[in-house]
């Protein structure tokens, strides 16, 4: 009997320990934890009671010091910032939260796929109701409109950063190949894709340094176009010629022999470091990847205005979910987080380029960057950020792009006939659209 009782006690204690460990583990992930019961529902927090707001973001979406500053600035708000894994995983988590309802976050960061969320604008607080029109002028217009419904009556999110697309290139290799090698020369002389492909070919022949892969080029071109795969009414427009034009440009680049062969990202990183890749077109955040991947080439890279015009890499946004109990407080918090000063902080800390043109001229935005041979890279970013074209995006874009890229990859890896590959890609897309 005694034995039984003691076993029981031990078992109960183990259960209690496991359960409490599970509960505790979750709390550790949060920036700050509290176990008080949740406040009663009301439009704004009653005096003496803190408004509890949960914020979802991913590493690098916003500067952590800005979040700390927000906590200090709003003593009546208890801000709980939860850092989640980025990318598709984040998007899926947000989507399932929207679908399932329940205890979700109040404030969420969103990437350029914010346009896909416009379809569910009823799940978000209309920020125009909270007075967002007042700050509209501070932000880039194209960027602001990305988060507004087509009738311009509902705004589901405020802009954080933009990701202007620029060309990253090795100045030393360009010089060695005898092609234009200063940012100014490149902007003046390398305007079209034909110019760039010809230049890349010379660089490749003289220095063994390639341009991006065939898929990179395709993405670069498609991102520069004002149209993508679907129109505003959801009709497939992939056969209208502009997609084929992007495809043909990529194939042409490949056939010139200047593209880097398809490979894993770790190999691409190695190639960046050893001079096998001499130029690549990408969004401003490629800067961080470059610094991490190619430490041996510090000082040799430069940034220039890209051939064919700047691309559309939306950058991120902050929205407020309809399920929040404190829409007013939540709006105040995001308004503060995306204020020009805080966005500038993010640029200085990790290179996210602000969507507020008023700070572009600031002296500290033009600081020379040692990795880029003391070039004032902020200037190029600022120039590129203003010229962006925005295309309509659709939830099915991913499916179409995947089918195209799959076939385009085969052109490189299996030497598949480009025309046949294009036909197969289209056929695949059309079949999937019928589903």
């Amino acid at each position: 009997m005694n034995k039984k009782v003691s076993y029981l006690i031990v078992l109960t204690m183990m259960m209690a320990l496991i359960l409490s460990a599970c509960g505790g583990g979750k709390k550790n992930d949060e920036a700050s934890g509290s176990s008080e019961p949740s406040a009663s529902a009301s439009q704004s927090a009653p005096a003496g009671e803190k408004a509890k707001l949960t914020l979802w973001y991913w590493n690098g979406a916003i500067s952590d010091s800005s979040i700390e500053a927000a906590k200090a600035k709003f003593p009546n708000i208890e801000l709980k910032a939860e850092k989640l894994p980025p990318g598709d995983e984040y998007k899926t988590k947000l989507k399932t939260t929207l679908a399932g309802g329940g205890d979700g976050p109040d404030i969420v960061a969103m990437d350029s796929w914010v346009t896909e969320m416009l379809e569910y604008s009823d799940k978000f607080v209309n920020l125009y109701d909270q007075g967002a029109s007042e700050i509209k002028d501070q932000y880039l217009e194209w960027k602001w409109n990305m988060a507004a419904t087509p009738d311009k009556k509902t705004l589901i999110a405020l802009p954080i950063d933009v990701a202007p697309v620029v060309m990253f290139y090795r100045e030393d290799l360009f010089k060695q190949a005898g092609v234009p090698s200063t940012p100014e020369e490149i902007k003046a002389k390398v305007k079209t894709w034909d110019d760039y492909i010809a230049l890349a070919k010379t660089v490749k022949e003289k220095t063994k340094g390639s341009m991006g892969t065939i898929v990179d080029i395709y993405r670069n071109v498609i991102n520069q176009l004002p149209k993508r795969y679907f129109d505003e009414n959801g009709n497939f427009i992939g056969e209208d010629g502009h997609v084929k034009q992007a495809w043909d440009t990529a194939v042409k680049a490949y056939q010139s022999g200047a593209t880097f062969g398809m490979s894993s990202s770790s190999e691409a990183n190695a190639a960046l470091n050893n001079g096998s890749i001499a130029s690549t077109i990408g969004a401003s955040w490629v800067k961080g990847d470059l610094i991490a991947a190619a430490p041996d080439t510090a000082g040799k890279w430069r940034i220039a205005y890209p051939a064919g015009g700047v691309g559309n890499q939306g950058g991120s946004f902050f929205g407020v979910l309809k399920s929040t109990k404190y829409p007013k407080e939540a709006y105040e918090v995001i308004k503060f987080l995306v204020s020009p000063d805080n966005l500038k902080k993010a640029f200085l800390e990790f290179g996210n380029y602000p969507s507020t043109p008023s700070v572009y001229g600031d002296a500290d935005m033009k600081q020379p960057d040692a990795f880029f041979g003391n070039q004032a890279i902020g200037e190029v970013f600022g120039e590129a950020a203003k010229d962006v074209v925005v295309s309509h995006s659709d939830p099915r874009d991913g499916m179409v792009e995947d089918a195209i890229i799959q076939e385009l990859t085969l052109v490189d890896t299996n030497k598949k006939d480009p025309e046949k590959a294009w036909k197969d890609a289209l056929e695949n897309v059309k079949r999937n659209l019928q589903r």
Partner: protein
Amino acid sequence: MGTKVRHTWREVIRSRTQYLFISPFYILFLVFGLFPILFSAYLALNKWDGIGEMKYVGFRQFQFIITDPEFLDAVKNTFIIWAMANIPLLCCALVVAFLINSAMVRFKDFYRIAYYLPNVTAMVAVVIIFQSFFGNHYGFANYILQKIGLHEVAWFNSALTVQMIIASMIFWRYLGYNMVIYLAGLQKIPSDLYEAANLDGATMWQTFTRITVPMLRPIILFTVMMSTIGGLQIFTEPQVLATLQTPYQGSITILLYMYREAFKFNNFGYAAAVSWVMFAIIMVVSFLNWRIFKPSDDR
């Protein structure tokens, strides 16, 4: 029947303390096991993007699956990878187990641990190592080929070599696991059989084919079953291998196809239907396995 059910319930109530203690498992199973299974059956008949309304479409999605060339390709890839990995794997595991079990090998424990070790490594880490080993441009495999005067191979550029890489990962990882299972089976075979064979002057090959294999039949059935069920669900290897946007050619398996439909393209209903088709395929294959490797004493 009724009295029997009532009797069972009385038994349950009488030993409620015990049931209470095992209840956490059953509650978790109900919430995270049974409910998702039933829900996926419901989902399979609906079109659902994860947020919007579900739309009932009946068996249309199943129809699309079995006519989708990409799905058929995924089935083909899965079976090719499975065969490439598991047939040599199980044969080698049996031979290794037999050798370790035989009297002449010393340091048995060491070999047992050494062969089992790959099974406890983190899968993602292993995939990343294999990936850089076989890299197209700077892989170690190509470095060796060059050193011995051969041509480089663009490993990730053809379906066959990609499948080979995945198969070799599975082989490397599960050799020890299956070996340990065989070893346990071998130790259950009474040693007098071997002694008798020895006295009759049987060779090692004869002992292996006439005693070891027949006596191990049920164990072999078990490992074949398990590796079939596991092998048809290959996912992590191709998923991690493909750091590019799309998986490498020849590496889209059924499970990866399903995952991409659900979490990349948000076709949750369709993905649920795929998982049921996969369930049917695994059922059929397991049944075939069972027919082929049925323990001899059943006949």
